[in-house]
């Protein structure tokens, strides 16, 4: 026990000596947190749109004005022909082009209805989907209005014609703020980076400097060295977890509806995986550069398959199965559920158990390889 305490003490003084490394690890996460907290809106705003109105009737003008008055779009001038539309899209002057055909007003009252077409710059599939969805909604809204006026002329109310009344209610994040969804998981990213990178660095640097061998010839056993090395990083990791929690709730005003201590417990369980990965990588790697490269590689992989920014439900089945071994996936889920839904141990124990199993395997394997490599 004395040995472990000594190593812990040594490790802390080493961390104190090189504050730049910790700052450089925290910096990108903080930048990203602010970016995700402030900048990201899933709204696609200021989409440039050009219009070709072949019909030139009060009806078509009303439809066009309804679209152009929406603050989500920016009018990029009228086009003269379809070729002109295409050219404006090619040059990037507009991203959407609305074409109203010449027979628009005539067909509007026909049973089949009128057609308009929308040319979409499909370079960025996601944002063009969203933007065209907006236009679609505006057009539908406009045509319901037209329908309402027609029915009113016959003395009918539209509510009596539509058979269902739908009332959507949004739970947990009623204002649909992206910060509420994106900021809490930054705790997971930060804890992973801090614990894995710092333990990895600390071991590989001893290797590079040759001091690891010196430690091994002392009466301290390899397991004690590892335990002594990880304790400071567990402490820092928990500290970081609290820091992100505090800034998420106090600065970004994300509600935390779960139990703080349950979250810390899950955090501890999770750290057994991230620390284990750090130790494992540093035992295999020869220098700090390789540790960083390998951890980066793994982190990208884990983040991708964690549901952080790409929903897991959309991925193919076999990819979803791969994600079951990803510890980040579970912790990310736990953090989000606890923050917004206020879930507790009763609902989240399966995820906790999965992390415990993964952590046990990874940590055990890392201890074994470390012992084999050094002795």
């Amino acid at each position, binding site marked *: 026990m004395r040995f472990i305490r000594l190593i812990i003490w040594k490790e802390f003084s080493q961390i104190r000596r090189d504050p*730049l490394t910790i700052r*450089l*690890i925290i*910096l990108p996460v903080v930048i990203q947190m602010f970016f995700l907290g402030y*900048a990201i809106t899933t*709204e*696609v*705003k*200021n*989409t*440039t749109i050009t219009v070709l109105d072949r019909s030139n009737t009060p009806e078509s003008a009303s*439809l066009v004005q309804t679209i152009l008055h929406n603050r989500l779009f920016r009018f990029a001038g009228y086009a003269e022909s379809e070729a002109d539309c295409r050219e404006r899209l*090619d040059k*990037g002057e507009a991203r959407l082009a609305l074409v109203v055909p010449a027979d628009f007003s005539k067909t*509007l009252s026909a049973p089949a*209805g*009128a*057609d*308009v*077409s*929308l*040319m*979409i*710059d*499909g*370079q960025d*599939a996601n944002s*063009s*989907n969203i933007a065209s*969805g907006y236009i*679609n909604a505006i057009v539908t809204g406009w*045509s319901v209005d037209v*329908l309402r006026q027609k029915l009113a002329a016959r003395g009918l109310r539209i509510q009596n014609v539509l*058979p*269902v*009344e*739908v*009332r*959507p*209610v*949004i*739970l947990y*994040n009623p204002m*649909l703020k992206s910060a*509420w969804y994106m900021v809490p998981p930054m705790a997971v990213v930060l804890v992973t980076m801090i614990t894995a990178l710092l333990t990895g660095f600390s071991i590989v640097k001893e290797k590079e400097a040759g001091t690891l061998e010196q430690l091994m010839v002392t009466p301290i056993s390899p397991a004690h060295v590892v335990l002594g090395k990880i304790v400071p990083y567990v402490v820092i990791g928990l500290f970081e977890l609290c820091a992100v929690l505090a800034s998420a709730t106090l600065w970004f005003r994300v509600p935390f509806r779960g139990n703080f201590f349950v979250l810390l417990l899950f955090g501890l369980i999770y750290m057994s995986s991230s620390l284990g990965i750090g130790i494992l990588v540093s035992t295999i790697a*020869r220098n*700090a*550069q390789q540790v960083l*490269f*390998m951890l980066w590689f793994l982190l*990208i*992989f884990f983040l*991708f398959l964690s549901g952080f*920014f790409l929903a897991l*439900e959309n*991925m193919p089945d076999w990819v979803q199965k791969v994600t079951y071994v990803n510890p980040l996936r579970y912790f990310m889920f736990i953090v989000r559920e606890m923050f*917004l*839904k*206020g879930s507790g141990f009763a*609902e989240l124990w399966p995820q906790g158990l999965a992390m415990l199993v993964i952590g046990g395997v990874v940590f055990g394997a890392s201890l074994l390889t470390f012992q084999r490599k050094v002795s």
Partner: protein
Amino acid sequence: MNPRIRALIRKEVWHILRDWQTLLIVLAMPVFMMFLYGYALDVNITDVEVMVEDPSPSAETAELIRAIDESSLFKVTGVVRSAGNPGDIFKKYHVKALFRFSSSFAADLRRPGTPASVQVLIDGSDQNLGAILRNAVEPFLQKCVLSILHVPVPVSVTMHQIILYNPQQKSAMYFVPGLMVIILMMISAMLTSLTITREKEMGTMEQMLVSPIRPAEIMIGKITPYIALAGIDGALILLVGYFVFGVVISGSLLLLTVASLIYIFAALALGLLISTLVAKQEHAMLIVLPATVMPTVLLSGFIFPLTSIPIVLQWIAHAIPATYFLIVIRGIILKGVGLAQLWQPMLVLTCMGLFLLAVSIRKFKVKQ
């Protein structure tokens, strides 16, 4: 070529080949990321898991539930008579929405004048999905019910979409250019900053500086092999994009090569600049991440369209090379446009590269 530069290039190539683990990662990383994007990225939202609360089951509600389940947007994972506290359903089953039919749903549906009511509880945690569901449920349910009742859907305007440049909306067309932008920046900036800080750490930089080699020659000799390496990575991305994901370059390959070289050059100059600021390899690596990769990913317009982000960030976005390269590379690969439409961003990119190189050479000289 100047023999001193040639000797330096040979030395640098030897360094690259000797550390084969790093080389392997540098070459495997882009391919690996492409497969990740290729299989994990799907912008179409389908089969969102939902549950239904149906207090008085009837033929109509059963048919409606089947219609919801059979739609491409939703998948019904369970039907309950009573949801109790709906919060428990969301916490326990992790569904994204709960449709709650009123107890007189079937009767109201048959009686004219009283619309049957459905409450839809939506899990808004994921604001993106929440917004999509909120906008979709009403028209979706109206349409389902109308078709169950065999009433023609009242339409007055139909919108036809013509999607240009990427008509099948293949996600590969979107992530291949984006990955080019990210990976070329990451590899170029990181490797140059590493190789220079390594020489600094070992003390060999000082030895070179007291030799007759001039600082500018050291820089050129160090940069050249990495231009080649980044070029190989770029070619690898395009080849995998073509053979595995079917991304065809509709514009000029020559123009793409030239533009990529200019971009690589700018990224390498940025790496040089970083290496003049720090003394240790790990610090260089850790600075490269927030200074180059993050702005490239977040601000270039790859993930978030430039017009949607706050104005201050738009300014920053216009100060980074990636933004311009993304316009050029999307223009060439997707739109098939040429120099006539793209000369402006290419010119900006070139100026940025020259500026960064000039600053870093100056900094480098001052330090000595």
